[in-house]
């Protein structure tokens, strides 16, 4: 490794501009593992200018040397058919504004599919940039009785070839060393043929020279697929996995959730007992612990769901689920992989939207993103639980099922069906322009995922949720609490209004009723009046605009002002305080139905809006999503209210 002390390499460290190394390769080639190995997960994600394509750039450090490593979108060839692939080609050719042409390339090729990958390697080498071929999954090749002589491959290709097992970190150190010598990387003496027809012959000769023996078929994968993709058993397992998914939400996470809930109750009790200032106690107890705690309760559920999703993905089942569901998704103009993204959206729309990155077609991606917020995410669950509890007595049953559970199931179903229809509409509008993308998907062999990789995948999804709690929800809770408790009223004012100042409940009820929040709630009354919402619900709906979960906390704050002992009963007994309906109960069946349906459709999640902005690179799509979902929510809620009234609710 004499070249590693190359002079120019030493000079690089003093330059402010580090050399740019780009990773290119097919999807599933292990490219991302190599990238993570080189950059140590400290990658910055962004977008390429003006397109819905995520950009990953990280820094690889070797001693004093720094290299900017960019993970280019995966592609099967350099004749692009999708925006992602166009980006890769444009970057390689230095034609993309805002993204410099890389100084050198790492061409990632999967050893188990080398016969296919060499065609791509040939195309990349023909571009003439300094290149090093990184051969991944060499361990799997050996395990499946395949053979490859890396040295001979190096001779045949005329470029540097390094074996790497990305997810185990084998060979990453060597690769990092080699980065420092990129200026001295050998170039092929005879460039590979550019004619597609000659490329196959070239690839075969290279493989023969390198003593390549393809891997045996993966017996385990064949046996598992015989069951998991079987028309009968495969379908049964598929539904069992989906059941498991929802069981995780409703049973597995429930005890943990209860534990957290009692913890937060205990905490706010402690605040009440030990903080004497009513202001501070209210802010800490109601706003922070009540607001954020109410949301943090869902962390076990979210984390478990993401763990399950990461496991299914890592093992290789998600590709099978996509294979099984492709025909169904095709009815709505989408493809199997969109199913996986929508399934993730049951946990939270944010990772669901990020999961659309696996879709090669930009139009499919947008249609799926526009539909994802309609899937019933965990944030809707507390709202549904509260409202269904007000709507239906727990003892009511329909056959063997509890009526509450049936309504909950119906809401999940409504969300899913609406999402599919929305995707279909967006796809149909998009398809009027230009050709559709062909569908193709690899089914990778089943692999035991590295625990670290699963945990990293789980954590990166859960982090988005926790980030939302710690920023959007804290801010909303505090602002809301202030709005509900301001302006301050002096005792004289209270007495003038006929409030007994010694009765703290009466005082807080009066304060809330005359707060800024109440003004705001009354201001938007004309919009929500047809749905039967009173100003308190309006405040809840407005606060839920930031994050749905805050609706529960808001109503909790309002209700506990009126009846601190039993806020739940206060909600049920709540009456219109003013207007033509004054004195009538607020939470009637038509109003609750309207409210439930409103939450099914409305895009009440700032984090989702932000992710839509990030993933699409423009404000256009989040604006479209927000507008269509809000309008749809109002219309459907109005329909639901009218229907319930007609049914005699």
């Amino acid at each position, binding site marked *: 490794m004499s070249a590693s002390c190359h002079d120019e390499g030493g000079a690089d460290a003093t330059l402010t501009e580090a050399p740019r190394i780009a990773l290119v390769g097919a999807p599933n080639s292990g490219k991302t593992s190599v990238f993570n190995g080189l950059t140590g997960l400290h990658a910055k994600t962004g977008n390429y200018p003006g397109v819905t394509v995520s950009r990953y750039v990280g820094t690889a450090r070797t001693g004093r040397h720094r290299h900017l490593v960019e993970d280019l979108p995966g592609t*099967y*060839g350099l*004749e692009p*058919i999708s925006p992602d692939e166009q980006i890769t080609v444009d970057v390689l050719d230095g034609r993309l504004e805002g993204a410099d042409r890389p100084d050198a390339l790492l061409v990632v090729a999967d050893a*188990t*599919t*080398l*016969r*296919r990958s060499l*065609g*791509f390697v040939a195309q990349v080498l023909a571009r003439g940039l300094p290149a090093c071929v990184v051969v991944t999954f060499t361990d799997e090749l050996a395990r499946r009785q395949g053979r490859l002589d890396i040295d001979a491959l190096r001779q045949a290709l005329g470029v540097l070839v390094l074996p790497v097992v990305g997810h185990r970190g084998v060979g990453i150190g060597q690769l990092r060393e080699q980065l420092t010598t990129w200026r001295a990387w050998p170039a092929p003496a005879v460039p590979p043929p550019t004619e*597609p027809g000659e490329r*196959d012959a070239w690839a075969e000769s290279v493989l023969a020279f390198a003593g390549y023996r*393809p*891997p045996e078929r993966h017996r385990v994968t064949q046996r598992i*697929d015989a069951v998991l*993709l*079987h*028309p*009968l058993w*495969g*379908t049964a397992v598929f539904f069992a996995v989906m059941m498991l998914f929802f069981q995780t939400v409703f049973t597995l996470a429930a005890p943990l959730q209860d534990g957290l809930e009692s913890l937060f109750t205990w905490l706010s009790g402690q605040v009440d007992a030990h903080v004497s200032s009513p202001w501070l106690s209210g802010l800490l107890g109601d706003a922070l612990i009540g607001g954020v705690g109410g949301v943090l309760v869902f962390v076990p559920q979210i984390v478990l769901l993401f763990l399950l999703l990461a496991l299914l993905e890592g093992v290789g089942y998600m590709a099978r689920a996509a*294979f*099984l569901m*492709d*025909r*169904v998704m*095709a009815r709505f103009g989408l493809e*199997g992989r969109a199913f996986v993204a929508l399934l993730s959206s049951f946990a939270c729309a944010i990772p669901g939207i990020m999961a659309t990155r696996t879709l090669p077609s930009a139009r499919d991606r947008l249609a799926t993103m526009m539909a994802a917020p309609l899937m019933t995410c965990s944030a809707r669950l507390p709202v549904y639980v509260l409202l269904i509890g007000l709507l239906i007595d727990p003892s009511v049953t329909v056959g063997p099922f509890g009526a509450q559970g049936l309504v909950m199931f119906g809401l999940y179903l409504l969300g899913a069906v609406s999402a599919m229809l929305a995707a279909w509409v967006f796809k149909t509008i998009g398809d009027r322009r230009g*050709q559709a*993308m*062909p*569908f*193709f*998907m*690899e*089914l990778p062999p089943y692999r035991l995922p590295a625990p670290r990789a699963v945990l990293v995948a789980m954590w990166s999804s859960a982090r988005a949720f926790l980030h939302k709690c710690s920023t959007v929800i804290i801010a909303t809770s505090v602002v809301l609490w202030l709005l509900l408790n301001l302006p301050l009223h002096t005792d004289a004012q209270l007495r003038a209004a006929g409030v007994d100042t010694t009765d703290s409940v009466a005082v807080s009820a009066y304060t809330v009723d005359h707060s800024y929040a109440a003004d705001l709630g009354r201001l938007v009354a004309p919009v929500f009046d047809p749905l039967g919402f009173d100003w308190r619900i309006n405040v809840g709906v407005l606060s839920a605009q930031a994050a749905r979960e805050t609706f529960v906390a808001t109503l909790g704050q309002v209700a506990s002002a009126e009846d601190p002992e039993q806020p739940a009963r206060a909600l049920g007994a709540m009456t219109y305080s003013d207007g033509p309906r004054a004195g009538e109960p607020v939470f009637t069946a038509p109003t609750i139905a309207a409210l439930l349906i409103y939450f099914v459709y409305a895009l009440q999640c700032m984090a989702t809006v932000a992710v839509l902005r990030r993933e699409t690179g423009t404000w256009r799509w989040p604006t479209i999503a927000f507008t269509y979902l809000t309008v749809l929510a109002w219309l459907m809620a109005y329909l639901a209210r009218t229907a319930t009234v007609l049914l005699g609710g």
Partner: protein
Amino acid sequence: MSGTDGVFEEAGGRGTTVIDAVPLSLADLAPGARAVVLCVVADGELTVARRLHDLRFTPGAVVEVVRRAPLREPVLYRVRDYEVCLRRAQAECVHVTEAER
């Protein structure tokens, strides 16, 4: 059966008329069948032709039909030592001659 050319040659030799001039495509094969790619014909759909080429459905490649999804689509194929699934519309673009099992 074999591809168009083969059919005519064979038929000509026996002096019979042949109606079966429709070439065989990947979509016509049953699971377990093996075939050799003749060419990719994607009328006016450049993206399909390009992608099938990049996925290495190139002339001479041996393709095996591995499995059909329970809802009949997509179909999993094995080509050039790896497995990839295609929908019927794309499989129809790959013209093949069936190889012996």
